[in-house]
């Protein structure tokens, strides 16, 4: 099973009306998109995070244009590339022009997604409070204060969870417990 298959399966389940699968899909592609934009926003004042969110919205709004007989990642990067070009156009700069096939080759999305799946699996071994803190602060990119506020924990509590979570992961990777 490749990651393209995983994403496509989530997409198809989403199209059939499974909102959970749709959310899971958006969550899985957010870091891929951020990495894609970060690599291409060197100068020009473009924010990779903003572009990623804009692309998530576009993927959500335009989901009916996905042809289920074709690869998902090609469709996704076609939208990302369009949003990038559009953002450059708005700032009257010339965008980097690449063909979709180049993007797919450079992004190495397969390894990125499978790494993400590995992280998900590892986090699954931790207590939910710790894995949640790690997800929010280390993957989603929230600050400790932001996560503390949304989860209703104190900041020191979050810091401790992150610390213990990382220690737990390290132990797991070294093959202890």
């Amino acid at each position: 099973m490749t990651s393209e298959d995983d994403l496509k399966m989530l997409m198809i389940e989403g199209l059939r009306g499974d909102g959970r699968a749709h959310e899971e899909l958006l969550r899985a592609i957010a870091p891929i998109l951020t990495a894609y934009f970060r690599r291409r926003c060197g100068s020009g004042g473009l924010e990779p995070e903003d572009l990623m969110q804009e692309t998530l919205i576009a993927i959500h709004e335009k989901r009916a244009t996905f042809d289920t007989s074709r690869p998902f990642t090609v469709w996704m990067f076609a939208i990302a590339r369009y949003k990038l070009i559009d953002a450059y156009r708005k700032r009257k700069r010339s965008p980097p022009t690449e063909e979709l096939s180049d993007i797919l080759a450079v992004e190495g999305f397969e390894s990125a997604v499978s790494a993400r799946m590995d992280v998900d699996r590892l986090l699954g071994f931790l207590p939910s409070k710790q894995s949640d803190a790690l997800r929010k602060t280390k993957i989603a990119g929230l600050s400790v204060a932001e996560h503390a506020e949304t989860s209703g924990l104190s900041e020191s509590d979050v810091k401790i969870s992150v610390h213990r979570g990382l220690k737990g992961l390290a132990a797991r990777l070294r093959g202890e417990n």
Partner: protein
Amino acid sequence: MDTENLILQLGADFEPTDSRFVARRLFVALAVGLGSALVLLLVWQGLNPDLANAMKHRFFWMKAGYCLALGAPAVMSVARLARPDGKAPPIVTSFAAPVVLIAGICAVELFLTPSSQWLEMWLGHSWSACPWKVLALSVPIFIGLLWAFRAFAPTQLRLAGALAGMSAGALGAMVYGLHCPEPSALFLLTWYSLGIVLTTAFGALLGPRLLRW
């Protein structure tokens, strides 16, 4: 905004989608656009009073066939461009076939007609109005396609605009054939084609502005 909140919001606003969404929406757009063009023709120009008779002749069907042979591949190509990863097929060849065929019929026509009548055959009675009327009749169809594309995700805006213009022009010209009494292939090849070229050019010009999302 925090990405997780965004995702939850998007997931909350969620309905299953129609798996044939693109085809259905295009069909509705074209049906309504064609219907409106037909009404416009009836109100503005009226049918060819001799239509029943005209339909017995091959000229009528030649005109309709030529427009359809240009319009059908244009519609199929523009349908591909509705998707972000869609590529238009190599369409030049499918457009060349009807043009070459009609050009062949023109050659036969010219051969059979004394050269003193060539100019009349070429210009007919309505050459100066024909391309503009084709353009006018294409407008409702073009608007229909623009409406359809608002929900699509084209990424090649100029090409999509040109092909939408061409689809609208060819179908508009087909509707115009119900009024136009000109019975010559040379007339068709020149003035109908000019009308379709005009709509294609307008489409290419407007595409990047009107199809953005």
